């Protein structure tokens, strides 16, 4: 019963998000990134900060997804980090670049060869794309964290952040773009500066998003939009699309007590019952988000030293936590839309979730928050002077929830427990 199937609904009309996404972020660190006029303190530092924020936000929403960072400048491209789902690995790598770029004098002790190229020359679009292609083309079974045997699951994307107006390519770039298209990789291009034809072509040809940044804020907000939407290629995975649903087999670990007193707790793969020892990613994104969600915290209390998500190293099943699935599939489900109850709903007396009596709340704006807090803390029935419902109801099934439950639905659960 622990093996579930997370469905990622591929619905072209709404532009849903895949449960799993493989993303290569290509960052231009060429000379044009020195530009100080439009982005402060300069383009590179600004972009690095935006990308850092992007990585945080991305993994918060897509805990099952993987990312790789690629840098390009001076006609060459290099991998900054390997494909992984680790926020920390990526942020650390980016911070390294940030340090290098702020050091005016080139540091002798720099560990990578690439540091000498930073902020020099122009990008090499083709080299960078080929690197990304090599990573993404590996076949999803080879990708860490991929669901076993599900080649179709997940979308492969490239995010290109470019500032250079020229590219130095070893060969014909159009063949590379065709290759990307053939393996249905989306390339989103963000150009800081101007509308470059090859970038527009790349994005349009691969059905990616194309954006020329008007300002720093515009760039950041457009980049963040990538998190919520994935373009859907019409001719891609048509067989799977015919069913409307793609299956992503996942497993939920069940903790097993071992040892005499049960002090040692072990998680086992629900399919082959292998103990899960190490996740593929010890520095998982959990700590960034876990504390915020009480539901996950509860799970942790039950005792899970192993970081999830991970693959079972025997059968390859993707082991996840329920919250991962919820977060990953936010857009694929009908996310709960809660609306404030009206006076007509006064006859509803108890919360549909916790069964507590619904409270009436004063409409005076001054102490709007006060009863909310009291209810969430003590759940005692205080008699409000004016009878307006403090509760909210689901926009679909009209179930009523008390303030505490609606807050949880909005921040953690993301769906209505009654109708979904």
């Amino acid at each position, binding site marked *: 019963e622990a093996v579930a199937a997370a469905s990622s609904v591929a619905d072209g009309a709404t532009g849903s998000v895949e449960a799993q996404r493989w993303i290569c972020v290509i960052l231009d660190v060429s000379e044009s990134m020195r530009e100080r006029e439009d982005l402060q303190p300069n383009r590179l530092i600004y972009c690095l900060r935006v990308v850092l924020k992007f990585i945080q936000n991305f993994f918060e929403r897509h805990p099952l997804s993987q990312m790789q960072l690629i840098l390009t400048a001076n006609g060459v491209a290099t991998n900054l980090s390997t494909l992984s789902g680790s926020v920390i690995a990526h942020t650390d790598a980016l911070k390294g670049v940030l340090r290098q770029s702020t050091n005016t004098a080139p540091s002798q002790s720099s560990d990578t060869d690439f540091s000498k190229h930073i902020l020099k020359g*122009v990008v090499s679009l083709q080299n960078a794309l080929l690197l990304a292609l090599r990573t993404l083309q590996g076949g999803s079974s080879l990708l860490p964290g991929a669901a076993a045997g599900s080649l179709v699951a997940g979308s492969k994307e490239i995010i290109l952040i470019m500032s250079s*107006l020229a*590219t130095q390519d070893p060969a014909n770039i159009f063949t590379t773009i065709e290759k990307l298209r053939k393996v249905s990789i989306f390339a989103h291009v963000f150009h800081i*500066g101007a*509308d470059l034809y090859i970038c527009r072509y790349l994005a349009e040809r691969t059905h990616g998003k194309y954006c*020329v940044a008007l300002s720093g804020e515009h760039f950041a907000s457009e980049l963040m939009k990538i998190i919520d939407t994935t373009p859907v290629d019409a001719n891609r995975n048509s067989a799977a699309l015919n069913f409307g649903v793609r299956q992503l087999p996942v497993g939920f670990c069940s903790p097993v007590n071992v040892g005499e007193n049960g002090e040692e707790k072990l998680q086992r793969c629900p399919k082959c019952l292998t103990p899960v020892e190490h996740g593929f990613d010890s520095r998982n994104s959990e700590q960034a988000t876990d504390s915020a969600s009480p539901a996950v915290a509860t799970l942790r209390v039950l005792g899970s030293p192993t970081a999830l998500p991970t693959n079972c190293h025997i059968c390859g099943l993707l082991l996840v936590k329920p919250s991962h699935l919820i977060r990953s599939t936010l857009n694929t489900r009908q996310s709960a839309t809660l609306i404030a109850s009206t006076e007509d709903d006064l006859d509803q007396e108890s919360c549909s979730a916790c069964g507590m009596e619904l409270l009436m709340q004063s409409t005076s704006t001054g102490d709007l928050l006060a009863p909310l807090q009291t209810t969430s803390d003590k759940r005692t029935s205080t008699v409000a002077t004016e009878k307006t419902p403090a509760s909210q109801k689901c926009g679909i099934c009209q179930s009523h929830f008390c303030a505490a439950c609606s807050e949880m639905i909005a921040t953690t659960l993301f769906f209505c427990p009654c109708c979904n």
Partner: protein
Amino acid sequence: MRFLMDGMWVYFPYAYIYPEQYQYMLQLKRALDANGSCALEMPTGTGKTISLLSMVLSWILANRTPDHPYKLIYCCRTIGEVEKTMEELRRLWAHVLTHLSTGPDAPSFVNQFLALALASRKSLCVHPVASTLGKRAVIDAKCHDMTAPHVRDKFRREHGAIIHPDDIEDSAATPAAADIMRQTASHVCSYFEGYVSATGGDPLILQQSAKSAARRARSRAEKKETDPDAMDVDELAPEDQPLHNLSGIFSLEEMKAFAESKGICPYFLTRYLIQRCDVVIYSYQYLLNPRIHQIVSQQLKSDAIVVFDEAHNMDNVCIEALSVKLTRTTVEAAAKNVRALNQQVSTMKQKDVERLNAEYRRLLRGLNLQIAGNNNSAGGNNNNDPAALAAEPLRANPALPDEVVNEVIPESIRKASEFLGVLDKVIQYLRTRIGVKQVFQESPSFFLKKFGEAMGMADTKPLRFCTGRLNSLLKTIEITNIDKYQPIGLVADFATLASTYEKEGFMVLMEPYEPYEFALATRGLGSPLHTPQGANTQINASELTTNPRLELSCLDASIAMKSVLAKFPRVVITSGTLSPPGMLPRILGMKPALTQSLSMSLQRTSVCPLVVTRGSDQTPISTKFDMRSNLDVARNYATLLLEFAKIVPDGIVCFFPSYQFMEMMVSVWNEMGMLNKLIKYKLLFVETEDLTETSLALQSYKKACDSGRGAVFLSVARGKVSEGIDFDNHYGRCVILFGIPFVYTESRTLKARLEFLRQKFQIHENEFLTFDAMRMASQCVGRVVRGKSDYGIMVFADKRYNRIDKRSKLPQWITQFLGPNQLNLSTDTATSIAKTFLKEMGQPIDRDAQIGVSLWSEVEILQQPASRPFGAPMPAPSMRM
């Protein structure tokens, strides 16, 4: 889309229309209604051609009567434009047909609609040998050798008579007939014979496929003999008369394919059909060059609507059509021609005196009367002899028909040998004049007077008949290889024009040296920064490579226009750059009923003109003569280009005022190391005077733009690139004009013309020069914005652009975006404006926001005063909101 405009249905093939297209049509309609000519300026890339075609065709459909079957004559500059226009027309006509009934009961106009494109034999010939010859003159000569009446007569004499269609089946079996068929392949053109038979003439040979058509043609010819007026196209079944009922839209290639499949010559077929077709699209030359006009366009009726597209350079086309340039080699070759002719005449005197005598008698009747008669019989009488088209004058009179004196050829040149003597005198005189290494400038009358004195010819009037007389002579002695006789033809043209236009509008000029070299030697114009010291101070004039040119230069553009304007009341000239309005019509001698300059309606500001007057170091930049060799200017121009190369994506096009200046700049930049810096950002391509080199450079340039490497194209404002080649979308995101592209002012031809303009039209020379330079400048910058979704930066890098007299001569669609903050900029302010502009332009276009602003659907059209449905009340202003 179909809508009413002043009560007339207008057919437009697209669902949306630009407001300026609507305005354009409205103006055009008013001009057509007023039976007047008009000059309309509309920015490029706003669908000028389609609005024009749409309006004219709708107007013709509405106003057509049997007496006035209006016709559209559309003149383009290049073959490519002809083809493009044809495609637009095809789309339009397909749309028109969706609104009109096309059944058998439909008006005959609908079923017989015919649109043709005409080009020279070079583009239309399908003859297996002639079409491979390459050069235009050679193909024409080869064609003449196979189709001239005397060639066909000779063939007829040698190979018996015509092979009758009824006999051909029997004779095809015999070896003799097979031999004849082989002979025909080399002596006469089977396609031309196919044409003759298909149009009812008397063919020499018949092809199997054309056999039945010829039989019908013969029967028709017999019928016509009995009653010439009984010719009625309708009474014959369509399959019987494929050529008379021919309908459809034929581009050059389609016409070739169609005619070849029928075994008919496409060139002659097109020319034959021009008289009855509804739309003809061809080059300016067919109408403006009197030599070609007489042959091709003479018979067009005056109710035709004449359109000159891209007319901004029309005055130059008119002038070139009437000017004759002679070099020393031409004169020598002409002398050789005369010797050859003399020989032929003398041999003919011994052999065939009768023919010469016949010519003499014919000339006595009057040369021009005879030609006119020929034309009348060909045009007026519904082509009783289609083969006459091939018997056209070898060299038509270069002067305009109404100037040609309609009288008997003077006695002194009536005899062949005497005429050759006169020609010889002319050549001798030209030889003496061209040998002198001295610049001179004379009026034609003075030139002729001196000629008369020197050669002992008191009366120079006979010279007026030179071309006609030469023509007659060449025909009489049955010359082949007419391309060899071009030099003597040029000399004859020279003489004819000089004596016809003795009074005004022409000038005889002598340039002993190439103009550039001359300037270089005398003024040290060429790279002063590089020549070793003293090298350019004194160059002996004798050391120069002399290529003396004697030019009879036409100064008055209105001369060539006059006949067109006199014949066709409805002449439309249109272009993207006609500003300032009124100037061009004035020079052309037009009195337009309407002159209008339309601005561009845009939802976003997609044109960014920048007037850069100072470099990054605040030094003024200019290509003025005293400043252009200044190193500061060169450095500032280099910095300007470099800065823009850093911020502009993909392609940048630069225009220099001349090749020399460009070469000088490039070499100076190279020494400064600027080119190496530039190459980091963009690749560099340069236009040269070699056409193949330039087209190769263009190809690579476009490839570099495509693949994201970025490129800069350096070209010259009056070169090939500035006129014909579009740098649309990413191929031209920015255009930089280094300096104002003034025409080379030291040229004597130009000076004479300026003088003439001042005297005749009271146009001050500066005014004309500025007008000319600014139209060139706007042509150059117009290369980069070719449509509404396109955008581009236009950098005017010269401090003189800041002056109001220069700026005001830019077309309105540029000036409307030229705000005060875009004037008098330095390099760095200009780049920062450009940066912001480029970012804004990179944003996706919201199509819905355009509708109503820069795109009108039928809803918006119905709100226009001219298109409101009949009887509908005038909407109150508040209601319109």
